[in-house]
């Protein structure tokens, strides 16, 4: 019986338990004693008892039997020797597993007694659309058949156990139904645990990010010294294709970090003044009619995915700036098609709505009394804004700018398309530089051996990026929170 079928069966038992439980509660209510809980709560409690433990067991059994099966396959494989045709035990085990999965596509007769040689078996499998690695060995066939048999047995036992637990739970739930039984409290307690569980996912995600990045990074630093990475000024990882063993490369973070910060700086120089001025205008000057049109327009601008900005920079703006500079300088232009300037400019425009919506919230949080106080003294609007509102909103605006800077540093698609891949170390904004995010993408797309430093360096870059933005985010969130409390 497949797991999906068992799952459906458990749900069906749960549904039956619900209706029986509810019916029982309705029958028991003779109107003499006030029931503690309404009938459907009894139904739900029976449903939960019938399904929850059974589904938990289903998951545990599913994972457990898979692990057991893998171990079983491994134990049956012949010892690895230096001249074995397969490089590692892990690979052999995975080949056997895919063979076993492939056999399931054949008709049961053949699957139970397949031909003894892989050469004979392969075309039969191929006819069913199963493509297997050519280095699958003959000796794996009986192991795979055995594994399939064992898997069938395991899932049958599992199904019986799970259904038994489910029916047991249902019976228990139904037997709990009594007039004064606190079914509602039971159901609600369980729901509360569910809610609590959901809210921990955020923490689990963060832990997952940190652990996964950390493990791979430690792995990386076992192969490449820390100083090479953090203080190296040359980025030349010697792209190694899968299987070539990987020659030593240089993994200097400095040029990438410099590029990241430089592009982010250019972007902030565009985004902060423009975004802040738009927010000020929207909050202080714009008539309600203008606001009603421009605010959604800015929101739509914020809703455009960054890849679209990147493509605009790559296809339109980059070549345009190059040709423009060529026309200005005569001959070759001083702006390259992919440059810090182009990437920063486009990223800056992408960030305008971010700055403006964050600042708009913060400016409108400044109490009206401040404005009135200043206007009442005969200040003009711009004097009020420059001398009272902006200084009062300053901490919040600093927080908003930090959050935006963190976005700029972590932005990927614009720089992948518009900044270039050459890890230059230059001060000229019209040349190409590259960023941390670009290199993460570069190192992890394409066929790469997962355990080579060329791949693992992406995780070291990732954790650097994560740490950098984490510090900025937390600091910014702290400032903004303090700022909001001040005016609440």
């Amino acid at each position, binding site marked *: 019986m497949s797991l999906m079928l068992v799952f459906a069966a458990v749900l069906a038992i749960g549904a039956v338990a619900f209706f029986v439980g509810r019916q029982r509660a309705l029958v028991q209510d003779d109107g003499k004693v006030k029931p503690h809980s309404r009938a459907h709560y009894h139904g739900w409690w029976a449903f939960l008892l019938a399904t929850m433990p059974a589904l938990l067991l289903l998951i545990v059994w599913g994972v457990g039997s898979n692990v057991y099966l893998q171990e079983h396959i491994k134990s049956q494989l012949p010892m690895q020797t230096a001249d074995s045709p397969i490089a590692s035990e892990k690979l052999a085990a995975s080949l056997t597993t895919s063979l076993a999965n492939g056999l399931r596509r054949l008709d049961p007769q053949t699957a139970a007694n397949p031909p003894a040689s892989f050469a004979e078996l392969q075309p039969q499998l191929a006819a069913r659309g199963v493509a297997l690695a050519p280095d699958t060995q003959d000796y794996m066939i009986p192991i795979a058949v055995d594994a399939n048999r064992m898997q069938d047995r395991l899932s049958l036992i599992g199904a019986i156990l799970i259904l038994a637990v489910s029916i047991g739970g249902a019976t228990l739930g139904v037997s709990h139904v009594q007039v004064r039984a606190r079914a509602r409290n039971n159901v609600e307690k369980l729901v509360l645990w569910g809610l609590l569980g959901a*809210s921990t996912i955020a923490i689990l995600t963060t832990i997952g990010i940190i652990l996964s990045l950390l493990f791979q990074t430690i792995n990386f630093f076992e192969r490449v010294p820390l100083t090479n990475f953090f203080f190296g000024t040359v980025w030349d990882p010697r792209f190694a294709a899968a299987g070539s063993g990987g020659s030593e490369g240089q993994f200097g973070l400095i040029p990438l970090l410099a590029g990241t910060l430089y592009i982010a700086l250019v972007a902030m120089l565009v985004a902060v003044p423009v975004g802040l001025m738009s927010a000020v205008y929207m909050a202080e000057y714009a008539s309600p009619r203008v606001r009603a049109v421009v605010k959604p327009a800015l929101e739509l601008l914020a*809703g455009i*995915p960054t890849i679209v900005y990147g493509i605009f920079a790559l296809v339109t703006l980059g070549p345009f700036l190059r040709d423009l500079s060529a026309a200005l300088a005569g001959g070759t232009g001083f702006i390259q098609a992919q440059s810090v300037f182009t990437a920063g400019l486009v990223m800056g425009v992408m960030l305008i709505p971010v700055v403006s919506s964050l600042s708009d919230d913060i400016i409108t949080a400044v109490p009206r009394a401040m404005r009135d106080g200043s206007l009442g003294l005969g200040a003009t609007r711009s004097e009020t804004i420059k001398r009272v509102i902006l200084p009062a909103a300053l901490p919040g605006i600093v927080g908003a700018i930090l959050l935006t800077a963190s976005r700029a540093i*972590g932005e990927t698609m614009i720089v992948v398309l518009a900044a270039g891949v050459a890890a230059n170390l230059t001060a000229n904004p019209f040349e190409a530089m590259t960023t941390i995010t670009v290199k993460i993408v570069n190192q992890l797309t394409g066929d790469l051996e997962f355990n080579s430093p060329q791949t693992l360096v992406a995780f070291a870059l990732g954790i650097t990026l994560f740490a950098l933005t984490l510090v900025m985010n937390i600091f910014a969130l702290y400032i903004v929170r303090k700022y909001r409390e001040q005016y609440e």
Partner: protein
Amino acid sequence: MTDIPLNGIANGTVARPRRDIGLKRRYAAERRFRIYGVLAISVGIVFLAVMLVTIIGKGYTAFWQTTATLPITFDANVIDPENKRATDPNVLITANYPKLAENALMAKLGINPDDKVAARKLKGFLSDGARAQLRTMVTDDPSIIGTTRNVEILVAANIDSAFKGQIDLSVDESRRKVSDQQVTWMKQLAAEGSLAEHFNKGLFTFGASSRPETSGMGVAIIGSFYMMVIVLLLALPIGVAASIYLEEFAKKSRLTDLIEVNINNLAAVPSIVFGLLGLSVFINFLGLPRSAALVGGLVLTLMTLPTIIIATRAALAAVPPSIRSAALGLGASKMQMVFQHILPLAAPGILTGTIIGLARALGETAPLLLIGMVAFVADRPATPLEPSTALPVQIYMWANEAERAFVERMSGAIIILLIFLMAMNITAIVLRRRFERRW
């Protein structure tokens, strides 16, 4: 006059002469400041307009595709010269189908079949996609062999561009991709009415292909659809449940503070970091398949969760305490209060947040690159476990192609993506306007 301000302080009551408070200068500053504001907003709007206009200008032609309608003779001598198709099914698979189309074209243009020079020039005229198209026709219905049918066949991308007038024909022949002879034929066919532009269905149904005219975003649309369904099914319930706990049940403690900081920070973590998470946890650790929409959906779920949680919490917090007291005062349990009163009132806000979160997830590219969705997938995936791509990833892949026909398709795909996103964002804005409640 100089000491008037001080006098004024001393004697507030006098009908004094007008003080000079620098009005002219101050109003000039005021005007300048206003102009800066208008300029700032204009910069944003103008950039948006320029970007949209260039993309639409480059992309709208992608929705039309040139086809040639040719009377194809399914000649048994070409398909099965040795007459073995009854015994060997491979014959019909491997037959020389392009030859059929070529013959039909030559007949149509009145070219002598033995003219080798003309035949070579004709090679690049029709799309290689004709092979698959004619093969499908024959394998579906072998009785077609020996008959003649009118078939619409895609022309090659260069001819398509030329026919749409996108290739500058005044350039020297050697420096453009379409020869003068091909242009002549093109005009001849067009005059006869057998060359025409049609709505480009293939753009929405084809998968990856190395030829622009037979590549489309069919796979990407399905992949994105799977991912959106996964995000909606996972992120919405989990996000709402988490928000309800944090907003209604959790007591203020270190733990809830930590969760709160965590969520706010997660909302600002660079998306590419989520890609790294997906790669090492879902693919390497849990062993889920690379390039699968399932993994993409899970990664996007984790990314979207904070957005939904933040929006939901704001919506819950906006429901006034009086409603809570009213429900509790009637003897409802806290759980009943939340699910029967607070949640329905907060629903529009939650919906708005969810739509915005989904829109962001739909346009997200970077994390998907890391989990292997930059893949050449020609066949539409039947389940979320099979390799697929996503709309923005497809756009990224086309952006890396050199041919102009790919740029056209890329811009067309951006238009489609933007239409989806705009529709979602506008729905969210309208929803918010409509249900915005002032308590």
